[in-house]
């Protein structure tokens, strides 16, 4: 399994680079055995045109014959080649739609499964052949049964992501208001399917112009916010889908002010706190799928620098939650660490509140422990430390006390130019605001670590500037210039 996963991940990475990262879901009831992956076993050889045609004709005969041939057709449509043959047959989609709108429940279900198989095709032509079915798929969202609605939703979600023509048709057909009324369903399975459709729509390349404004204009955002934090104990599927939806909306910056005014930030902060307490109770299986988009939303929303959004997040517990996630996911999902640090950067960049809390909650040692994880992590950790150091001498004094220097010396010796550069920036801030740190640095192995980089074109100027400090006597501490009342004496 890890091998398959790694191979898949490589393929997905490549697709992402080409901006073609799409995925589809397949709902397939596995009647033969419950264990194997349904997608892997293809029962028979692909059918010939004649055979497909015969099956279609048989669906027009009596009830029993119809059921049998329809279910054969459904199985046959698991083959890509059969799918292609099917859509090339004139009138085939008409017949399938006829069956799909039948009033016999099992005929309708089986026809819906056929459409679903077609929607899973990786051939855009197959998705486009389903165009005549979309208005019916929308009509049936009002729900004949949970399973049927679910099938319609996943079929729509698959079609939507495959073809722009399908999206271009579904928008005027009213998919947004259909979803907005469907989102009031009380059924988890329906809501998860709906979140899937929406997340697929929102990933479209034209989403920020054509789709997101419509979504923001509807009642969907408020429902989404509500659903993203509901029923976490029961099942996370719904929350995961809607959290990704929110991420796609937020990162395209269409109207984040609206979401902020609806209280998205405080809602998501509370959600993170709840998730952190779940993680700390070790009920964290799969939780990273939800944590990740929530972190992203908060980070990108903070980057909006909007009036009032800082107040919505100003809660020290958020820092504790982030460190809980980072410790828990460090070994298996390093991306969570990266994304937590991104948020930490956006929290500490402008807010002395969070910088101060990092020190008083004694989170610096845990932060330093992350330095060796990866290049990206080291860069982000150093940037967060710079944010704190930049806040002035009281902060630098504290950082110095927390033994930052020895970690910096070792990371400086091991790193590439970019990480080393960030390290130099941090050292400069520390020395500037708290000269005792400079003296300490040079009595430790600091000078040798600096010399290592003195010929690097990117770094040499900064290295020289720092080395000069070693030869000059320490200037009067800038802190002494600040009124002594400003230096807190009662820090823990």
């Amino acid at each position, binding site marked *: 399994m890890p091998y398959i996963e790694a191979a898949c991940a490589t393929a997905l990475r490549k697709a992402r680079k080409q901006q073609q990262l799409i995925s589809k879901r397949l709902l397939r009831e596995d009647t033969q055995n419950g264990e194997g992956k349904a997608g892997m076993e293809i029962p028979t050889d692909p059918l010939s045109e004649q055979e497909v045609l015969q099956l279609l004709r048989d669906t027009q005969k009596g009830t029993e014959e119809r059921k049998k041939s329809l279910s054969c057709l459904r199985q046959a449509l698991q083959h890509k080649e059969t799918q292609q043959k099917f859509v090339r047959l004139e009138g085939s*989609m008409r017949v399938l739609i006829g069956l799909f709108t039948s009033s016999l429940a099992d005929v309708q279900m089986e026809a819906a499964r056929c459409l679903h198989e077609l929607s899973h095709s990786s051939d855009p032509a197959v998705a486009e052949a389903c165009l005549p079915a979309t208005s019916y798929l929308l009509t049936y969202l009002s729900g004949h049964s949970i399973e049927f609605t679910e099938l319609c939703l996943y079929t729509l979600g698959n079609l939507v992501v495959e073809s722009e023509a399908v999206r271009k048709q579904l928008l005027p057909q009213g998919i947004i208001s259909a979803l907005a009324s469907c989102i009031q369903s009380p059924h988890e399975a329906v809501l998860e399917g709906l979140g899937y459709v929406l997340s697929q729509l929102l990933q479209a390349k034209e989403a920020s112009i054509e789709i997101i404004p419509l979504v923001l204009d509807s009642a969907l955002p408020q429902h989404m916010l509500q659903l993203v934090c509901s029923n976490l104990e029961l099942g996370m599927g719904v929350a995961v889908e809607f959290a990704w939806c929110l991420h796609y909306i937020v990162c395209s910056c269409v109207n984040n002010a609206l979401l902020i005014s609806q209280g998205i930030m405080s809602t998501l902060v509370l959600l993170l706190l709840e998730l952190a307490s779940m993680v700390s109770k070790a009920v964290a299986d799969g939780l990273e799928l939800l944590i990740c988009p929530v972190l992203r939303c908060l980070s990108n929303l903070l980057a909006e620098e909007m009036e009032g959004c800082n107040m919505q997040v100003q809660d020290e517990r958020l820092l504790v939650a982030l460190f809980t996630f980072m410790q828990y996911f460090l070994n298996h999902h390093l991306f969570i660490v990266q994304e937590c640090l991104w948020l930490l950067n956006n929290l500490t960049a402008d807010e002395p509140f969070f910088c101060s809390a990092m020190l008083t909650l004694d989170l610096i040692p845990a932060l330093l422990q992350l330095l060796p994880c990866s290049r990206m992590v080291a860069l982000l950790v150093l940037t967060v430390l710079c944010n704190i150091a930049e806040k002035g001498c009281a902060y630098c004094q504290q950082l110095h006390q927390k033994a930052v220097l020895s970690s910096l010396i070792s990371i400086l010796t091991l790193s590439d130019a970019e990480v080393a550069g960030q390290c130099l920036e941090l050292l400069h801030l520390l020395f500037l605001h708290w000269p005792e740190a400079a003296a300490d640095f040079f009595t430790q192995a600091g000078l040798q670590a600096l010399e290592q980089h003195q010929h690097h074109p990117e770094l040499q100027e900064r290295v020289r500037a720092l080395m000069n400090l070693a030869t000059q006597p320490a200037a009067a501490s800038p802190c002494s210039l600040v009124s002594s009342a400003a230096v807190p004496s009662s820090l823990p």
Partner: protein
Amino acid sequence: MLLLSGLSAAVRAELPLLPAPARAPPQAPFRFSPRRLRCPREHELLEDGDIHRHLYLQDILVSVTQVTEKPKVSEFSCHIAGCCQVFDTLEGYEHHYNTLHRNVCSFCKRSFPSGHLLDIHILEWHDSLFQIMAEKQSMYQCLVQGCVEKFKSSKDRKDHLVTVHLYPSDFRFDRPKKAKSSTKHSKSPLLQNTSMPVDIKTSEQPQVDSMEISPVENMENASQPLSSLISLPPEKHLNRSRIPSTICFGQGATRGFKSMKKKI
């Protein structure tokens, strides 16, 4: 683990515990100044998380497909008078009930896939004031939920559905009212029954289109079974696998629509 107690203690402070002097710009050669980062969709920082999300989406087969065996119950038939369908699962019954008996017009017993379509049907077919009002103002509501447009006639509405909403021109749930046949419906209970979905009564009849069909249309359909609409594409297309199916399928579909249009 670290500081978990901190989570439960609701510490909220408005001001930092440490003073922060006014920000100074970086001094060359140093260049750092704090800034909040925005990551657009394609940012490399988001790559690993995105991959994880998509692995989850594609792996979903394992958890979702393992549909638990539906509990079979002993066979029972639909309790609605006149309906004799038999079921062995509750889901099957639920689906049947919602398809045929949930959104049913109490006047003519037609069933509709949604309450919205049923409401429109009742208004247009059975509200005695409707015709009178429709002569004075636009009364035909758009069938698309969320669209508030109204039209003078069902023909205008159909044009709107096709051009604005890109609905198929033969949308099954938009059958225009035929003045004469509708009065017949409301008067003759026998005819009402035959206008019920044909699948139930005469299940052996080749019949695809089942809902919302007047008896006349039924006969038309029966005289030209849909299976005759299916045909193989021209031979030359068969040999080329890469031809976009829209080329041969699209034309076929249009022809199909046209021939249906005439009947309506």
